[in-house]
């Protein structure tokens, strides 16, 4: 009986012990969760950010015998890269199944074969225009040209995507007469803008002719009638290649290492606008291409060097200048641009593929993809598939190149963007155009962050620290009990309210009472000094009633009066010093830009938000300085002020440092105040009367509109990551210093 009771007790005890163990385990786990949360944030941000720094990857998908036979002139594909086509040297276009897939034909199956030239015609030259237009021009005998376009009809029978290729002749099957003299064409370039066609051609007798056809479509028959303009450009020597910009304004003619640029807007008056001599040291020019957006011309050489050129304004006119160069290290056979981005592909003589991006100045990839030496290649419109030919085999590759436009240097150093006069730091993430070159420099917004934090700290550090010192060291305990919570309340005020007041109340007030604000900075301290001195002159027995510890209360009405006075003076000051309109005076007389929502407003509002952070920590630090230290100093005859500066502040300095660090951390990360109290323009200027855009406000403004997984989205995550690391460093440092301080005091 007795033993069973013990065992029951024992088992109950064991149950309790197990429960205790479980509790210990659970609680430890819970504690660890905090650490886990922080690590999760860190690594998740990193996980989203990292892909932007990864290079490109090319994976082999399919390979099969060249469908349709013959020698390939050009390759192409539709948007989803399910169906491709090739143009052969005998003038045929062959559509084939590019990739295998559910419900699709096997890869390599010929779907359609059409001829670009008639039975009695022969193909003399061939040209294609930009990817956005995607037309082909074939030159026939006797200076005739025909335009053809591969098209893809997409339908969804039974919810399966079906692509039916067809060949169209958008301007009719009747060829256009390019050369008036009817000579054969050896070399051809063409571009189209709407129904206007511009051709440049070299004839068999080595004349360079430029022809413009302006088409008008008959609404009923849909047939075109053309008005034709022709001109002959006098140019001696063998011409190696011709290029026309898609806006039909410029013609590039390459002769060995000389590049002639002609203004062909008016064919009656073709001007040579510039001649570029490319250095012989780079070897012969082996390929040229216009990048997406058609501003940049890429020139590749035998030496493997590729240079980027675009027009830069200077000396009153726009001239092509070399912007940057790439070095692939191998002779280059051809250059292939993308349709939307500034990425381009170089195919080397050894059959290597190099993927490069101009804005970020990055080389993302270089090797023989899938160990295939490629001879010819084409990129899909969405730039996620590559079709290449090697001998009698066609290879299809999948391209993974999601974030070429970003590199460490593109984010943090000056970049020369297209149509800019010089390298700049610019943040401009989106635009209406598809062919826009995004500008992802975090420098202007980081600068804005620092600027906002700087002006805020300018206000918050002196006030926060001075107030903390007074409260901790001089103030009577009873008063301190009231003052501390009041300032704590200040910390709890939602920043959205501070931001709203800053933007809608303070900003107009600053604008209309700027002289008052300047007066405030001078008048208030002076008034305090005068008040203190007057107090000092009062007889001793009155002064004794109010000790130093209550001076703050005594000064309240003084400060209110001085503040009111400086604002009341404002209109008069404005009349006397600023001709009655400060804003006008600043802008026109001093040449200082004035925005209504400026750094001064942010400084005041955010300073207000940071004061309590600094105050609270610094006050704790000063207050916890052991009393026997200051008492000892006072006993040795030092004044209160001497004791404070030489003993107390010195002892508390690590705590004060950590207060400033914490304050800085808060100022750097604050979002709503800067969002509402500045104009959010990413400019780089220390001017206190201009606004800024900060990292945090930038995230708040742009995040909701960025596409998930896009480069923009990841860059915004990078901005958040930078903020995280910034504040992590400040806070950890501050906490570390504070811990040390605490240990020191505990030993005192």
């Amino acid at each position, binding site marked *: 009986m007795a033993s069973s009771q013990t065992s029951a007790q024992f088992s109950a005890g064991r149950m309790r*012990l197990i429960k*205790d163990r*479980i*509790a*210990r385990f*659970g*609680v430890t786990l*819970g*504690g660890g*969760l*905090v*650490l886990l*949360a*922080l690590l999760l944030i860190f690594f998740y*941000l990193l996980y989203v950010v990292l892909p932007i720094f990864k290079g490109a990857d090319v994976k082999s998908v399919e390979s099969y015998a060249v469908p349709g036979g013959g020698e390939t002139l050009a390759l192409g594909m539709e948007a989803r890269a399910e169906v491709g086509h090739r143009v052969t040297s005998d003038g045929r276009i062959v559509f084939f199944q590019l990739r295998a897939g559910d419900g699709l034909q096997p890869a390599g199956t010929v779907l359609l074969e059409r001829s670009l030239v008639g039975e009695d015609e022969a193909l003399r030259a061939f040209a294609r225009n930009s990817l956005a237009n995607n037309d082909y021009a074939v030159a026939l005998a006797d200076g005739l040209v025909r335009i053809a376009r591969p098209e893809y009809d997409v339908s969804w029978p039974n919810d399966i995507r079906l692509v039916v290729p067809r060949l169209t002749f958008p301007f009719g099957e009747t060829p256009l007469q390019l050369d008036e003299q009817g000579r054969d064409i050896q070399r051809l370039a063409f571009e189209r803008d709407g129904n206007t066609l511009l051709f440049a051609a070299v004839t068999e007798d080595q004349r360079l002719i430029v022809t413009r056809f302006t088409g008008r479509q008959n609404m009923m028959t849909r047939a075109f009638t053309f008005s034709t303009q022709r001109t002959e450009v006098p140019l001696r020597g063998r011409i190696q290649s011709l290029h026309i910009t898609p806006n039909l304004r410029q013609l590039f003619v390459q002769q060995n290492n000389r590049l002639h640029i002609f203004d062909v807007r008016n064919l009656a008056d073709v001007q040579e606008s510039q001649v570029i001599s490319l250095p012989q040291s780079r070897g012969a020019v082996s390929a040229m291409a216009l990048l997406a957006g058609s501003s940049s011309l890429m020139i590749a050489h035998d030496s493997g060097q590729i240079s980027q050129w675009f027009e830069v304004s200077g000396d009153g006119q726009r001239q092509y200048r070399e912007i940057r160069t790439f070095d692939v290290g191998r002779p280059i056979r051809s250059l292939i641009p993308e349709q939307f981005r500034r990425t381009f592909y170089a195919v080397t003589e050894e059959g290597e593929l190099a993927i490069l991006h101009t804005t970020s100045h990055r080389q993302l990839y270089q090797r023989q993809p899938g160990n295939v030496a490629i001879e010819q290649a084409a990129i899909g419109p969405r730039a996620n598939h590559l079709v290449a030919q090697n001998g009698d085999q066609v290879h299809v590759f999948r391209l993974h190149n999601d974030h070429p436009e970003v590199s460490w240097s593109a984010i943090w150093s000056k970049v020369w963007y297209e149509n800019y006069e010089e390298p700049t730091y610019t943040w401009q993430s989106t635009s209406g155009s598809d062919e826009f070159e995004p500008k992802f420099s975090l420098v202007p917004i980081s600068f804005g962050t620092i600027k906002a934090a700087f002006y805020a700290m300018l206000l918050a550090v*002196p*006030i926060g620290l001075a*107030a903390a010192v*007074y*409260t901790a060291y001089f103030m009577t305990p009873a008063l301190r009990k009231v003052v501390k919570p*009041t*300032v*704590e*309340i200040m910390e709890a005020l*939602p*920043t*959205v*309210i501070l931001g*709203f*007041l800053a933007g*809608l*109340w303070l900003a107009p007030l600053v604008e209309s009472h700027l002289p008052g604000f300047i007066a405030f900075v001078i008048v208030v301290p002076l008034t*305090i*000094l005068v008040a*203190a*001195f007057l107090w000092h002159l009062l007889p001793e027995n009155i002064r004794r009633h109010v000790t*130093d510890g209550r001076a703050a209360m005594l*000064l*309240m009405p003084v*400060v209110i009066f001085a503040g009111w006075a400086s604002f009341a003076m404002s209109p008069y000051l404005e*009349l006397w010093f600023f001709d*009655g*309109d400060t804003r006008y005076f600043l802008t026109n007389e001093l040449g200082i830009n004035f925005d209504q929502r400026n750094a001064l407003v942010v400084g005041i509002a955010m300073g207000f938000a940071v004061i309590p952070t600094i*105050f609270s920590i610094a006050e704790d630090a000063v207050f916890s300085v052991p009393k026997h230290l200051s008492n000892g100093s006072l006993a040795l005859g030092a*004044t209160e*002020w001497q004791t404070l500066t030489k003993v107390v502040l010195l002892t508390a300095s690590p705590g004060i440092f950590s207060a400033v660090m914490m304050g800085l951390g808060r100022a750097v*990360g604050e979002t*709503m105040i800067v*969002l*509402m109290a500045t104009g959010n323009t990413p400019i780089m200027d220390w001017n206190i009367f201009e606004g800024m855009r900060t990292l*945090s406000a930038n*995230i*708040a403004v742009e*995040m*909701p509109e960025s596409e998930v997984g896009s480069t923009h989205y990841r860059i915004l995550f990078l901005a958040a990551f930078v*903020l995280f690391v910034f*504040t*992590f460093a400040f*806070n*950890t440092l501050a906490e570390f210093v504070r811990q040390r301080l605490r240990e020191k005091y505990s030993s005192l």
Partner: protein
Amino acid sequence: MKAWFKSGSPWIWMTAGTVSLALIAVLGLIALIAWRGLTFFWPSTIYEFPFNDVDRQILIGEIYEREQIPVTRLQDAGIDTSHITDEFVTRYLVKIGNREFVPLDFTWVLATDIARMETPRDLVMLERARNGNFYGYVEDVLEDGISVMTANADIRAVFRDRIRRAVNLRDEAMTLQRGPIARINYQLDQIRLERRRMELRGTFTEEADAALREEEEALREAYLEVEAELFEIRQRAQRDAVVMRDMRGEQVTLSMNMVLDATYANDMNVLQKWGYFFRQIKKFVTEDPRESNTEGGVFPAIFGTVFMVLLMSVIVTPFGVIAAIYLHEYAGKNAITRMIRIAVINLAGVPSIVYGVFGLGFFVYMVGGTLDQIFYPESLPNPTFGTPGVLWSALTLAILTLPVVIVSTEEGLSRIPSAVREGSLALGATKAETIWRIVVPMASPAIMTGLILAVARAAGEVAPLMLVGVVKSAPTLPVDGNFPFFHLDRKFMHLGFHIYDVGFQSPNVEAARPLVYATSFLLVTVIVGLNLTAIGVRNRLREKFRALEH
């Protein structure tokens, strides 16, 4: 003087000055918000301004703002100032309302141009459901286009009754829309999803489809019935109209179903004004916003804020308390403990927008996107949880406020004398029992304090919410009568975001500003109140344990 400087006394006074400056700033700020926020509810006098220049059109409206400007600035702007002798002149911003009849509903007037400022007792301010306020005189009340005024009837009383009828009809229509119509739409949507779900699972059969069809048919019929009722109410609301004379002297007929309230502000005694004041406050907190948030009340924002904060509290309290118990009761003095402490400090210091970014990426797109694929494939590609919503907002803010709860709870734990724990252990209780039965109950006020502070912080936080779930106008509340009653995937409105949105994104910022002040005042009151409560609880706790130690 020199001796005085040497004593350091002026510097002490300077530091004292900074304290007064800080105090004045806080109190002044709160006073400013309170004043601006509360005057919004007070009936403001409606003025009629005849001008010195008799040809100029009379203005009727409220004085919105007054300011002193130097005459030189007027001259710069090309205004004739020959009749002004002073250096400064007073300028009024007058709210003249009547938005559909005048190009701008605000106008600046120079005090020197005004002949008199009259306050006729018959001037009335109409609060309207659309186009803002209307100022003018009531001329006639119409029923089906025919005057109902008789010789001895009191036009104010007649008008008041007709407004009441119109408002009641409005409420009825609203009840129908919110209740039965919303429910039917919700159920129809559920049926659509059910069908899609069956299709995806491959369990779609003819019988099932027929059953669903039948249900749909019944719902549609019910819908038509309610709709007919709604149209009938709307028809009835069209009956009355009021003829007003505006400041142009023209007679304008306004349909009564747009009129919400009529205030004869110039004919009110103090008691009536106070009555109006409290009525307006009540309307403000209980009504829905109108005119893209620039008018009406803020009820959905209050509801959204409270609901999100409650949800957050439920999440953050257990984690915060457990972490605090770990740090104070279990953790040894080792590297991991130090790291956890640094993590707590850092979680408190990381900018809130970073939490927003994390919440959007991790919770919304990653976790939410995964949940959608597993549990809600039928509604794809429309996301259910893979889009910002109240649950993700609460979770994000829970991480954000975790350190607040931890720090506060730990402070409470550290104030409990170790003798209490030792006593419990000495009597044979295990550590878990000691903590659960003795320590936690004693620390509960500290936990409460932490929770209150966390709630205060969360209620005022806006930046992360802009990314993870707040919208300017949510069609439905996150809680309604449709199963499962709590819709955690829905987006919600929030007081803080309301301030940002109305103050900075609304089309008519000038008109909306008083409302923003009122909303700010509401938010500040709640947050300051919560903080004061927390401070009070904390102080009481300290006193209690101080007594315990002696």
